């Protein structure tokens, strides 16, 4: 893990501007260390407003060029400031942070994404594929235009099965990603990596409960330090004995074993 001033090599909007998705490529030193599912904590401004760093998943790793790609959606003040950064400028970055996904060595890997939950999954797909794993993507989005804007072509270029659902039926199965999964004949066993909104991840976890699939989910929570020091970003976990404990999304996660996660946030 490193704190470094990364140089921006590419930065710009991606796809239809209405989805406000941006692609940021950074030249960094620590590409060797990076594992799929990890994130970086970015300083978006040099001033004191916005004050905190912003966590963004690593959506692409190019070890030869020593580059990582981040994909992000313009949400509020912090990501808005970030969009103004220009190629050639530097961005202060802390990372790679957290525990990534387990990369299976063989068998089947299902990737289940909701919306922009797709972003951290590409490096996992690539590493698994390189190891000979059978990778299968299930991705739900609002409509075709969103999926294309959020990088569908990257996925279509991989040698994997890509199945999508859209709420408006403009592409793939009409419905959400659960509807898509239900239509699919599951393999006997394997691994699942899921990323998306909390209710969606809870539902996917539930869906695979009685199967032989081991589900890992990538959680999101507001972060302070990004290092496990401030306890700002916790989730709630229940161990096999039913005992509750907190997990730090930044350090113990963002990827957790889905069956341990207590999805109801009211604790």
């Amino acid at each position, binding site marked *: 893990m490193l704190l470094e001033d990364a140089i921006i090599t590419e930065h710009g909007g991606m796809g239809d501007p209405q989805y406000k998705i941006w692609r940021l490529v950074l030249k960094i030193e620590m590409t060797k260390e990076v594992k799929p599912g990890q994130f970086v904590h970015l300083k978006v401004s040099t001033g004191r407003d916005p004050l905190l760093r912003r966590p963004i998943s690593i959506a692409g790793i190019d070890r030869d060029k020593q580059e990582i790609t981040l994909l992000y959606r313009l949400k509020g003040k912090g990501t808005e400031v970030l969009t103004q950064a220009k190629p050639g400028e530097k961005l202060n970055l802390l990372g790679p942070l957290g525990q990534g996904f387990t990369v299976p060595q063989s068998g089947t890997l299902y990737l289940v994404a909701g919306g922009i939950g797709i972003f951290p999954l590409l490096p996992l797909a690539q590493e698994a594929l390189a190891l000979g794993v059978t990778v299968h993507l299930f991705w739900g989005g609002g409509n075709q235009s969103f999926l294309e804007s959020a990088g569908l072509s990257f996925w279509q270029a991989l040698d994997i099965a890509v199945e999508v659902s859209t709420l408006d039926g403009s592409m793939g199965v009409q419905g959400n990603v659960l509807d898509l999964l239900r239509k699919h004949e599951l393999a006997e066993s394997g691994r699942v990596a899921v990323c998306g909104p909390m209710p969606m991840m809870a539902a996917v976890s539930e869906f695979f409960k009685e199967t032989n699939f081991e589900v890992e989910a990538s959680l999101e929570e*507001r972060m302070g330090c990004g290092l496990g020091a*401030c306890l700002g970003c916790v989730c709630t976990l229940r161990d096999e004995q039913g005992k509750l404990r907190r997990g730090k999304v930044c350090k113990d996660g963002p990827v957790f074993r889905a069956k341990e996660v207590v999805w109801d946030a009211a604790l």
Partner: protein
Amino acid sequence: MQPSKELAKTIKTEVKLGPLTLKNPVLTASGTYGFGEEYAELCPVERLGGITLKGITPEPRLGNPVPRLAETPAGLLNSVGLENPGLKEFISSYLPKVRELPTAAIANISGFSVEDYVQMARALQKASGLAALEVNISCPNVKHGGMHFGTDPASAEQVIAAVKAETDLPVIAKLSPNVTSIVAMAQAAARGGADIISLINTLLGMSIDIEKQRPILANCVGGLSGPAVRPVAVRMVWEVSQAVDLPIIGMGGILTWQDAVEFLLAGASAVSIGTGNFVDPCAPLGILDGIEEYCQRHGVSAVSELTGRAWKKNH
């Protein structure tokens, strides 16, 4: 400006806060630096004047639900709610590693009754390998929590006296800024026998999600920290240092060495970095270097000479 390595030879960075001697005046603040290990890869622990550990309570606590954090203009609201492993687990699982930290480790204790504080003070002694005990009488996050001790002078005096009677460690009284008179609170802590005053803890604040029409924090209210509160913190250090004859650890919104020097000049003998670590995990190092260079530039040979310069008549 000279390279900092050379300066280290010429400027005396050691500061004495009553019974507590620190190799330099730059500490990290409780609750922002875990139990001292999390930042070690980025910020060499041995360079720090000391680390204030995450606040502990007698029993383990899960703390508040999320969201626990909300960013505000130049500030941060938090409502961690004193999540911690509890005294027993702290002693068995964390203290062994804490003892090995190559700097002063200060435990921070919070409680819900005088007995709570007494129990922890009894268990934490010089022999525990700690450098001091910081008594958090000001945590604003916990309902029916420390708030009461932190806003009523008589209660503050009582809890500090009780802690002081139980431990041989230097006792630091950590004050809440959510009071009409910070001087009255500091005087109460002094009467209770505190060796050192630390301030400020967080200002009680809140932020509302206007689309969801409810507070952002699950706990509704939280504690405000970061640069936004610095003017309030500096003012309180200024007031307390002139009214009470105890050394002060100043904190609240320190990000840069300039901010730290402001606290020293206002009357602090040491400073603590909290939220600043989240923005720049190497902040304490830059602050220490900056303070030394500042001393050099101003012809001051010991950092301790800066304390209170903004109000002391003759320097």
